[in-house]
């Protein structure tokens, strides 16, 4: 499993500015247990092979490995309202077959927490196809954001940057499928009934 995990980590589109991998946490049995090991990797440039070497200290079937990483995404700065590429956190999990009662069956052998879904879907349905309803703002800051996006050029830029984020994610998924014997994958988010379909819709809008 760790060999596959090393290959998986090698596909991660890390941030251009090091460090790409920032931490490794090893847990045993289930999530309720105190972690076995925790490595802070922020002061080093760590390779997938080096991370797996650390992980091998606890090579058992009921162990999980959690790697914190950073990848570059387009983020809109609230203060300046300008878009910039900035490193965002991503948490990557590798579940041993017996960890947490076989949680891999539900969560995958490898799982990546991609961060906030709106980086890929946009806020409040703004990037949904035209026939879908845009949500009402719930907060003054959100209202300001919606006002800003009422300008067609701003919305177009929002569409473009979000689209680039999606393409980065899709490119990574292809890289994983080429590097590993992936049986299936699933994109999931807390706010979307079908996260993958939503991303496809946004990519399809021109």
């Amino acid at each position: 499993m760790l060999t596959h995990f090393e290959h998986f980590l090698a596909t991660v589109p890390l941030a251009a500015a090091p460090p790409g991998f920032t931490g490794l946490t090893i847990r045993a049995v289930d999530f309720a247990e105190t972690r076995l090991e925790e490595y802070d990797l922020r002061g080093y440039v760590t390779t997938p092979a080096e991370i797996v070497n650390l992980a091998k200290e606890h090579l058992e079937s009921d162990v999980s490995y959690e790697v914190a990483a950073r990848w570059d995404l387009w983020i809109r700065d609230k203060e300046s309202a300008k878009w910039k590429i900035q490193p965002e956190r991503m948490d990557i999990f590798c579940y041993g077959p017996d960890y947490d009662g076989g949680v891999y069956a539900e969560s995958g052998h490898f799982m990546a927490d991609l961060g906030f879904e709106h980086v890929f879907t946009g806020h409040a349905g703004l990037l949904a196809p035209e026939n879908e309803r845009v949500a009402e703002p719930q907060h003054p800051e959100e209202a300001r954001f919606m006002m800003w996006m009422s300008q067609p050029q701003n919305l177009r830029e929002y569409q473009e940057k979000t689209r680039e984020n999606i393409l980065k994610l899709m490119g990574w998924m292809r890289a994983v499928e080429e590097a590993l014997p992936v049986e299936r994958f699933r994109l999931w988010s807390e706010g979307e009934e079908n996260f993958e379909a939503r991303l496809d819709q946004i990519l399809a809008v021109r």
Partner: protein
Amino acid sequence: MKRGSIKFWLCASLVAAAAASIAARSGARIPPRAASQTANVRHVNETLLAGLRPGRDTLGVAEKRFKVKNFSEEPNSSSKEWRDDCSGRSIRLEVDAKSVIQSVTLTTLGHQEGKCTDRRPDFLDPRYWLTGLGLRMGDSQDRVVGLYGEPNSSGPASKNGQELDLMYYQFDWAGDAVPQVMEILCARDTGRVVEITLAFPSL
């Protein structure tokens, strides 16, 4: 703010092969031993648990470290406890008449019966949940033996309805100024540490 994720499942046959490889490389778990087995004892003793030194530190040291929240004690009792009803974890101390700590117990075997809050109690800080040599909850029996050698005795045990394996270490060979006994309980089904007690006097 809602989060997104992506999950990958690998081909089942390859994962099965990887699991078999792990089992072969990590070896079988330590089988339960007969009680009072004394052969092959490695002479490494332990003096620290949860950052406390039984026989030397006082209750005041623990109170300062773990804070008052989650602390409980029965009137006229030598037992003091920090308990988290959410996780079932607790740190239990036995103190003498001069408030010197006589034993420290870290356990995950308590009943999970309380409400959970966002803020983790101070006493659950992972820095405290280990021995001086670095043994933690959730470590394997192999790691226990790797750190302390074969136990002086071991055998089956049970607590709160859970089937356990007891690993019992005596440190009297290290002199009477240090903790004399360490008991480690491991869950039988996982082989993982679920409770550690370090005692200054014999238990």
